[in-house]
Structure formats: structure tokens, C-alpha cells
């Protein structure tokens, strides 16, 4: 059988939802970060698949950009998580609630 575009889309959507689920449930900052990565990669799958489907390369090129930016994001994120740990002695994202309402 041939793998149609819709399969890719379904896959990416699944991946996206998994990432989203992780974000909503995981309290560990690193897990949070990983879930975001999942969502981004879901987008990448889409882009590449559609690039194939439409037969032009911009999608694939953009996917590369996204990866790069994802990396940068992670870098900044890890830095923030570092100072977070230094200030709160924890990487649980639900701990810091000094500011609310």
C-alpha cells in the first residue's frame, strides 16, 4: 500500500497532541521542554510531507530553520531552568508562584 499525505498529517497531529498532553501534565521543566520539542517536530513532519506533496523545497528548508531555532530555544530554556533551580532549589514548574492574581 502507498503511504498517502493524510497518514503523515495524522502522524504529526498525533505527535502534536502527545506533546500538548505532556505540557499539560508534566511538571518537570525539562519534560515540559521536551514536549515542546515534540510539538515542533510534529510541525516539521508536516512541513516535509507537504513539501513532498507540493513538490517544492521551501517546506524542507523551513524545517531546517525550525530545528535550528528549536535548538536555540532549548539553549535559552536550559539557562532559565538553571537559574530557576538556583533560586527555587527545584525544577518543578508549578513551584514558583510568588506572583499571581
Amino acid at each position, binding site marked *: 500500500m502507498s503511504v498517502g499525505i493524510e497518514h503523515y498529517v495524522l502522524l504529526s497531529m498525533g505527535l502534536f497532541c502527545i506533546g*500538548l498532553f505532556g*505540557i499539560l501534565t508534566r511538571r518537570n521543566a525539562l519534560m515540559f521542554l521536551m514536549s515542546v520539542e515534540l510539538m515542533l517536530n510534529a510541525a516539521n513532519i508536516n512541513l516535509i510531507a507537504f513539501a513532498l506533496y507540493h513538490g517544492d523545497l521551501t517546506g524542507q528548508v523551513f524545517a531546517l530553520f525550525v530545528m535550528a531555532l528549536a535548538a536555540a530555544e532549548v539553549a535559552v530554556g536550559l539557562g532559565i531552568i538553571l537559574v530557576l533551580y538556583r533560586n527555587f532549589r527545584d525544577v518543578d*514548574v508549578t513551584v*514558583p*508562584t510568588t506572583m499571581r*492574581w
Partner: protein
Amino acid sequence: MEGVFSYAPAIAAFPLVAFVIALAFGKYMPKKGAFAGIFATLGSLVLSVLMLVAVASGEVYHETLYEWAIGETPSGIGGIEFTFGILIDPLSALMLVIVSLIAFLVHVFSLGYMNAEGETGLPRYYAGLGLFTFSMLAFVFADNLLMAFMFFELVGLCSFLLIGFWFRTRSAPSAAKKAFLVTRFGDYFFLIGVVAIAATFGTLQFAGDGSFVAAAEAAMDGTGEAWTPAGIGIESWVTVTGLLVLGGVIGKSAQFPLHTWLPDAMEGPTTVSALIHAATMVAAGVYLVARMFGYYALSPTALAIIAFVGGFTALFAATMGVVKDDIKQVLAYSTISQYGYMMLGLGVGGYVAGVFHLMNHAFFKALLFLGAGSVIVIMHHEQDMWKMGGLKDKAPVTYYTFLAGALALAGIIPFSGFWSKDEILFDAMIVGLEEPVILAAYVMGLLAVFFTGFYTFRMVFLTFHGEPRSETAEDPHPVGWSIKAPLIVLGVLALVAGIANLAPVAKLTGLDITFLQGWLDGEYGAVEGLTYGAYSDLLAYETGVIGSEQLTVLLAAGLSLLLAFSGAGLAWKLYNVPEPVAHKERLGSVRETIEANYYQDEYQVWLAEGLTLPFARAADRFDQTVIDGLVDGVSTGSRSAGSRMRRLQTGIVTNYAALLVAGFIALLVVLGFLGGWFL
């Protein structure tokens, strides 16, 4: 004589100047500004006499001097001009003389009554007198209804200022407030009347073809057009407007039911009472009726009501007068009653009679009040008649002049009061023979004569006769010329003023000695349409006689004289004894009612403080709670909503993510359904 009229404005201007001077420089002047007032009123008097002479020589003066405002009548009957103007005809000339004379005498009297007694705040007093005189004089020669209303109101202001002269007491300010409020209530109707008449006829002139009287006549016989609201017939509309104006009259002239302010007004200095009762404020009302008599003559209904109110008030007030112990109170009720007579007279079409009594009353009432003032000085400001007695020998001048006034008031022949009162009753009687309502009014007026005679002489006997009933009465305080002179002048007038119009004599003998009637009928000169004759033509009254006219005259005169004498006699019987005692208990159950003045004050005070005030408080509470509560409620509501909205921000980032996604999905669902993506 023509030129003299150009000085007419000065008649009113003099007292105005005196007012300014007294107010500004009074405290630096000798006698605290009294002389400014005296000279001013003297000047007015002289000028007024000149006017009188000029009118007598056949000229009249009707001039618009100043344009106040002009514009279009809303009712769309052309333009209208609100102006200040002077109308000097027999009536106003006569009234000018009376007012300025009384004012002059009161000023002189004040020297003895106020200055000599070392009152404080005299500049204020003399300024008030000046303003009072100014307002009244301007009111008298006003040539249109609006101007009349304006000065009518100013008169009210002055009464407020002067009645409340002793403002450091509790009672005086209250009395002043009451006087202004009650008369204001009357003026409320008056003002509606003014506005209505202006809107109806597009003019407020008293005299001439442009007058609202002429316009009303024209409208009634269909030759002229006038606006009436909602298509009311012009006849009934004239009646309505006339009665509205009458509201002001009833207020100022202290007719039932708006008479309650007047007795309280005795809180003012006696001189002020004299001025108010004799010549200015109270007289203004009746004078206004006489001034626009032509208009009332067009409406029998209005006239009948005037007559009935007058007759009723005459009796009503007289009965209250008989039980008073304060000499000024007695005089106060006599004033109400006497003005009732004038209203009666005018109401029955006795224009001359009404004016005649207005004049006479001015003299003898001023006399009586000044006399009372003199008594009060003598008694060291004691006003209770039961503490007096036996002053006859100690103050002869006061006594005899006062007696003259009393005789005039009681209507004893040949004193002036008799002639005018008799004429009023005669006119009332002959009309009453045809009109039952008028007859009732006449009967009441007639009964009042008895009570008048009674309370008048009760007052005289209690004050002057018998034995002194207090140590102050033992050694009275002497009075100076400034008190005696005015008394003498007025005493003479009270005696002889009747000569002006000896109508009964004329009717019996056929002599032409009804000078006043001729005067008012324009024999010497008058403004077209403002004459007794013209009014009589308008009148719709039938008159009847009993037997012959002479008989009727004699009958009327005899009847009133009889009653007057019997009243006086009863008083003589009861009180002209060395040690008089009160006989009130004989009145039995009626007594409380009368002493309480038929509870007139009670219900009026209740209306003000028992009804209006609580209602106002309720309105205030409603305002604070409901209306303002709504406003504040909105703000508090939105703030609590805000503090609820804050709680969205729980501070836990996972919740944020959840809410974010939820919100996003909600948006997706809404738009998705609208866009039909899920199909």
C-alpha cells in the same frame, strides 16, 4: 401743569436714594439716616400732591419710560413688549398721596419710637423703610401688570426685612419667613396670571387701547383675537386669569385663607406695622384689584368670588379680634377684617366705595397703630392690654387721637370710617337683593360691624379707661413731639376724611357732594376707560332697592350704625369699669376655637412641616438609597467582577497552559462551527 409729570419718577426715586444713603452711610449720620428718609418721603409727598393737583386740573400722565425686554409671544399673537412705565390717573394720584403721606409720618414717628428708644441697627431700619416706600410708590404708578408684579414682590421682600428687623430673637425671623412664604404662595398664582394674560393678549398694559383690558373686551365681543389654551372659551379664561391674579391679592391683603401671616407680622416694630397695614403691603392687594378693575368687571364670577371672600374675611377676622389681649393683635385682626370690607366693596362693583374705604382706612389704621406704638412707648414696651388701663388722663393726646381712630374704625358717624363702610354695605345690599351670593356676603359684612365695634372699644376701654393695672401704667414714659405730631395729623384726617364722599347725604339731599366719585369718574380728568363710569357700564350686576332709594340708603346706614353702636355699647358695658375682667368663659366651647384662630395656622404649618417636610425627607432617602445606590452599585459590582477576574491568574504555569489550550479550543469550536470545518 404739564411739566410737573416729568418729575413723576422722582416720587419713587427719592426713597430709593434714601435707602442707598441710609444703608451706605447711615451709621455715620445723625439719627442714623432718619433724616434722609424723612426728607425723601417729604419730597415724594410734595411731588405727589403736585400730581394730584395736576390731575385735578384735568391732565393725566401715561408714559412708557423704559424697555425691559421685547420679543415674540410664544402663543403666536404678535410681538410683546415688557416695559416700565408710569400711569398717573385719579386713582394712582390719590394713592400716591396717601402712601407718601403715611410713609412720611411713619418716618417722623420713628424718630420718637426707634431712635429715642436707642435701638441698634437703625440704618438697616431706615434703609428698609426707604426701600419699602420706593417699592410701594413704584407699584402704585406702575402702568402695566408685570411692573406691578415686580414691585409687588419687592414689597414682599421689604416686609420680610422689616418684620424680621429684630433678627436676634427667635420669633421675628420666623414671622418674617412666614409673611414672605404665605404671600409668595399667593404671588405664585399671581405670576401664573401675569404670564397667562401676557400669553393671551400679548400685552400687559393697564390703560389705553393697547391694554389687556381693552383686548379682553374686544376678544369677548369678537372684534379682537386672543390665544386661549386648549380652546377654552375666552370668558371662562378671563375669569381664570383674573382669579389667578387674585391669588396675589389674597396673599398680600391677608384675605382668607392666606391671612395667617399678618398677625405674626406684629413681631416687627409697630411703626412698620403701621406702614404695612395702612399704606403699603396690605393695601397693595386691594389697590391692584382697583387698578385692574376693568378686567374683573368683565367676569361676574370673579367679582362674586371677590365679594364673598371679602365678606367672609371681614366677619371671620372680626370674630377673632374680640378675644385678643395684645393691643397690636387686635389691630392686626381689625386690619384683615377691614380689607375684607374693601374686597366686598370692590366685589359688588362699589369701586368708589372700595377706594374710599381704602383711603379712610389708611388714615385711621395708621393712626391706630401709631397710637398703639405711642401707648407701647408709654408702657415701656408692654403690649398686654390687661396690664394697662387709666392712660386716658396721663396721655391725653394719644388718647383722643386714638379714640378718633377707634370711632372711625368702628364706623361711628360722623367719623370717616362710617361713610366709606356704610357705602360699601349699601352697594353690597342693593346688589345682594338680586344676587343671593352677594347677599350672603353682605350679611356677613353686616355682622362684622357689630364685632368691630365691640373689639375696638374693648381695646379702647382696656387701654385707657379704668384704673392702672400695673406699675408701668402708674408712671408712664413721656412721649415727644415726633410721636404726637403724626398722631394729631392723622387724628384730624380720621375725623374729616369722610367729607370726600358723603354719598348717603348726597342721595338723600341730592347735593352734589360726592367728590371722590366724581374724581374717580374722571370729572376732573382721567385715562380713557379707567373711570368709574366705564367700569359701571361693564358691570353685569342687577341692583334692586327696598321701597325707594332714600329708604334703602337710610335702612342700610341705620342698620350698620345700630350694630356698631350695640357692639360698642356691649364693650362699654363689660369693660368700661374700674376693674374690668375677662369675660371669655362666657363664650364657652367656641372660645378655644376662636383663641386658636380657628386653627388656621395649625393646618397651614402642618401643610409645611407636617406634610411637605417629611415628604422631602422621604424623597431624600429615596435619592440616597435607590438612585445613588444604583450608581454606586455599578462601581462596586464591576470592581468585584474585576477581583474575580484576577483569580484567573493562579500563578501556576501549568494551569496557564491548560487555560490557554482551553481558550484556543473554544475559539476553534466556535469558528469551526460557524465556518463548517468539521463537516
